[in-house]
């Protein structure tokens, strides 16, 4: 269904419930002063909300998808392939959309002035990747497996290894920043960021699966990670267009 407004027929993105973490999550202490306490005001979706930046290939350099080849030498660590599809929740691929990632190095340290815990930087690793999904919504990065690292949220607090993902989709309503985790991480139980997602099925959505078909002999381990964005309701109108 779409909602006509004036004579405009626009997509409609149904509300999302029970998936995203509450902004006030006391286990993650920094949320205390950074969540609104006043009630949100409903923003009816219209032209500004159902459109969004279609950031193109000009944004992505030749080696941006390969985090192991951005310096003179190779980074330390376990080489991994991270790949998957960007989809809408109706199953449609999100084509030609920008995917941005960033991560710690194999020792668990970010190349960032504010990260100064005593783990080594790697001169051959920046930890930043970009690519554009193909016509099936597929993306693929080559990188190294990030290390876990400590933080000061609670006693003996460690972040499970993760890769940050930033996605635009095709509409302002679809903007998503998330983190990809690795299967069977023993640190999940004590991580308030991972556990801020209330629904177990939704939490599992953030965990990549080991993908032996993608694992390359004598080269790199494969992990599959699909990302599902809020999609528009389907309409007869759209289906007709797709048949053209």
């Amino acid at each position: 269904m779409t909602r006509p407004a004036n004579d405009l027929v626009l997509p409609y993105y149904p509300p999302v419930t029970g998936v995203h973490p509450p902004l006030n999550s006391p286990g993650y202490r920094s949320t205390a002063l950074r969540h609104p306490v006043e009630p949100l005001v409903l923003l009816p979706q219209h032209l500004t909300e159902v459109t969004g930046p279609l950031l193109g290939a000009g944004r992505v350099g030749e080696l941006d998808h390969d985090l192991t080849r951005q310096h003179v030498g190779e980074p330390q660590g376990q080489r991994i392939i991270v790949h998957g599809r960007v989809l809408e929740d109706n199953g449609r691929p999100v084509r030609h959309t920008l995917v941005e990632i960033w991560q710690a190095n194999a020792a668990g340290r970010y190349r960032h002035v504010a990260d100064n815990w005593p783990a080594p930087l790697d001169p051959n690793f920046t930890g930043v990747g970009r690519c554009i999904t193909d016509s099936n919504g597929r993306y693929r990065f080559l990188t190294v497996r990030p290390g876990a690292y400590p933080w000061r949220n609670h006693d003996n607090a460690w972040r499970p290894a993760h890769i940050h993902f930033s996605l635009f989709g095709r509409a302002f309503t679809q903007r998503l920043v998330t983190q990809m985790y690795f299967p069977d991480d023993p640190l999940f139980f004590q991580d308030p960021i991972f556990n801020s997602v209330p629904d177990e099925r939704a939490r599992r959505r953030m965990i990549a699966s080991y993908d032996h078909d993608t694992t390359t002999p004598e080269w790199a381990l494969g992990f599959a990670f699909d990302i599902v964005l809020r999609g528009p309701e389907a309409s007869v109108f759209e289906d007709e267009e797709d048949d053209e």
Partner: protein
Amino acid sequence: MIGRLTLTPSQTVGPFLHIALEWADGPYVVPDGTPGAVRISGTVYDGGGQAVPDALIETWQADPDGHFAHPDDPRDRPLARPAPRSTTLAAPPRDRPLARPAPQTTPAAPPRAEGVADSSVAAFRGFGRCPTDSDGRFWLLTVKPGALPGADGATQAPHLDVTVLGRGMLDRVVTRLYFPDDTAAHTADALLSRVPQERRHTLIAEPDGDGLRFDIRLQGEGETVFLDL
């Protein structure tokens, strides 16, 4: 409707967002020197009144004619013509024909022109992005968007949609930036009409020298109005 896939949940951008999400051209919704360009700056504050040095502001807006270079903007445009599919490098999702000239994505094209080819403002991107600095400040260079049609024949006052991401924020928050001196348009605007009068000012940028100021208060006294999208 058949079942929908479980969505991927949001997680915080964390404190190290700058290494990936800070773009040299991020704040330039329009290039330097664009006629009528306005600099918008502001500070992000937390509920204790402290500046937030690890937030990211993103904006999205129409051009001064009220147009979006996007296949889901169904309105006809003066320059509209179907683009030959073969010359469209960045094909639109869902196989819809582009109702606009194909983007000129030759290697010589300035990166700021991506996604937008038909605006009356050269290299208008519509999108702005700026992380906050160590004092919690951000800025953008843009042009004022045109008014937009709203529901039921109403008109929406010129506005930017704004996303705020940050460490300590497990999901984005969304707000809108309106422009000063549009008092009559603000009165007729459907969203502003929903906002209690005493809080409306948090959505309206203030004149500040040659530019505009738009502070964002995540919580507490003067809390910015955030939107349920």
